[in-house]
């Protein structure tokens, strides 16, 4: 296992370097002098010169990259222009709502996708399978913001069961906290559970074709025990990877959902940073989101290796 962990960590290095380079390049894609763009029309030449210097834009590119990487490794992601604070604490202070949304959506998605995927696989080709897969197709095809509006219209405006938008931290009471999360989580879980259910169904069908399933059936195992005792464990492990990968599309959805529901998470932060032309903050959010994705997938892979010796020995 130690060897596997070491190998997996080493393979991360080039990915992290790529993430770093891409993030670093973003500000340099701005046409002209980024300092001009950030400060807008009314800035004086002296202000532009000062910001150019502060951002290090007057030094050679490689020098900027080395400094930027060294700082980033120490957690120094520069200074937010709008907040006048270091970027990292600003981003971290917006992390809780986003992490809450992501965790709750993942939990709800697994709770929906597990029975749905298994049922679809066991009923393969029949009405229930087709119905479940049709719903899952809708789940991946509906834009999050539109689904959010429709849900708000029905559950908040027409029925009045839930708040239209907003966010209440857990310290504001469990009831209000939860009621404000129901619709955003529903929107996110619609897409995420659809992806997971589809993959779980295909994975279960795949493992149902394996010889050990024939053996189990030949021994007289009930269909239920074949499905839950034999096929599911083997389909569940790859599904774990899918859950990890679904985080990328989940985090894309989070940006939109946070904007629609006015939730002060990092999705809202990046849109705000964009409106304020706060490029250090945009870079910071982008970097941290990518690192979060890599970290979660590392954990998933290690869990995978723990559960399946073929992975760590292969």
């Amino acid at each position, binding site marked *: 296992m130690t060897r596997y962990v070491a190998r997996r960590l080493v393979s991360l290095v*080039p*990915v*992290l*370097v*790529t*993430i770093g*380079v*891409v*993030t670093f390049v*973003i*500000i*340099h*894609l*701005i*046409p002209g002098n980024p300092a001009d763009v950030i400060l807008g029309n009314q800035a004086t030449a002296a202000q532009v010169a000062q910001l150019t210097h502060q951002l290090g834009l007057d030094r050679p590119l490689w020098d900027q990259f080395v400094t930027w990487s060294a700082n980033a490794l120490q957690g120094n992601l520069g200074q937010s222009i709008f907040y006048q604070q270091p970027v990292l604490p600003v981003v971290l202070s917006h992390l809780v709502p986003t992490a809450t949304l992501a965790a709750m959506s993942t939990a709800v998605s697994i709770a929906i996708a597990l029975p749905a995927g298994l049922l679809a696989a066991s009923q393969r*080709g029949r009405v229930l399978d087709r119905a479940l897969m049709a719903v899952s*197709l*809708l789940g*991946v*095809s*509906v*834009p*999050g*913001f*539109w689904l959010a*509006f*429709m849900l*708000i*219209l029905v559950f908040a*405006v027409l029925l009045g069961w839930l708040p239209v938008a907003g966010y209440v931290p857990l310290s504001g009471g469990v009831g209000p906290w939860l009621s404000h999360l129901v619709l955003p989580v529903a929107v996110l879980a619609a897409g995420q559970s659809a992806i997971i259910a589809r993959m779980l169904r*295909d994975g279960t*069908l795949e493992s149902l074709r394996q010889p050990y399933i024939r053996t189990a059936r030949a021994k007289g195992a009930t269909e239920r025990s074949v499905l839950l005792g034999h096929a599911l464990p083997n389909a569940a492990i790859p599904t774990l990877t899918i859950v990890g990968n679904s*985080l*990328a*599309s*989940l*985090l*894309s*959805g989070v*940006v*939109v959902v946070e*904007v*629609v529901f006015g939730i002060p998470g990092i999705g809202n932060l*990046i*849109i705000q*940073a*964009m409106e304020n*032309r706060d*490029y250090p903050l*945009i*870079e910071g*959010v*982008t970097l941290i*989101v*990518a690192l979060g*994705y*890599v970290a979660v997938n590392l954990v998933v892979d290690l869990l995978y290796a723990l559960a399946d010796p073929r992975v760590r020995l292969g």
Partner: protein
Amino acid sequence: MTGGWRSVLERAWAEERLGTLAVAVLVVMAALAVGAPLLAGSPTALNALHRLEPPSLRHPFGTDDFGRDVLARTLYGGRVSLGLGLTVTVATSVAGAALGLLSGFYPRMDGPLMRLMDGMMAFPPLVLAIALVAALGPGLVSELIALWIVFTPRIARVVRASTLQLRSSEMVEASRVSGSGPATILLGHVLPNAMAPLVVQASFVYAEVILADAALSFLGLGVAPPVPTWGNMVADARDYMTVAPWFAIFPGLAIVVSVVSLNLAGDSLRAVLLPRSGAPRRRLGRGRQLHVSASSNSDRLMTVAE
């Protein structure tokens, strides 16, 4: 394919009913978008007297907050949403094919290129697109470039996988022995045989690009109003949800219908072009058996002939 288009259509209908229907829906939507100037009034004509009118014979989809015809705007919106999606899909297919071929064929380039792709794919698509648009400045061209960069790795991975399998195939060996250069081998032998998985993946990428474009223009980072896109129409509608829900419902439905159709078309293409990768073939054409020849140990690289 002796019977020409008719027989192709008949077979498609017999074998992949849902997928054929989906393609038909897409063709109709594309025709409506292209023909918008002939079919509908101006998408930007203001009419203060007819603001937020419910659907009627005159305005089948109702009117928006400026009294503009929602039907006309939805049709015109399709030009941007479907057109931009197609452009990005073609661009990612070309770039992805090039990267995938190089990376799969030259082991030395494989490591660096694939790590680059892995790194790109660690960014949630929308977050990376937002950051890129932020740097390039909002607008159509920035959005095109951003989505092109974001989605190219999806195609590159698939083409690389095919190339890896084909590299050691007898066909490529034979071509090499007979003196073909790498360009002939890659473009003449490997690429044609990697087309099937590429096309399947491209149809799913198209669906994702439409969703990403909708999200970007919803967030105000895509094509700006008054030019209608399905995404910015829904964004405009958000303040009128309770008084004029049709204003948001119709452009949203347009997104859903096009994305569902693309996903269904992709599923069908996969079933036809890449048998064994998904569910086994459901139906074969009446009285016709498909002969599938596969190169050794590969699931994907097949030539299908009657």
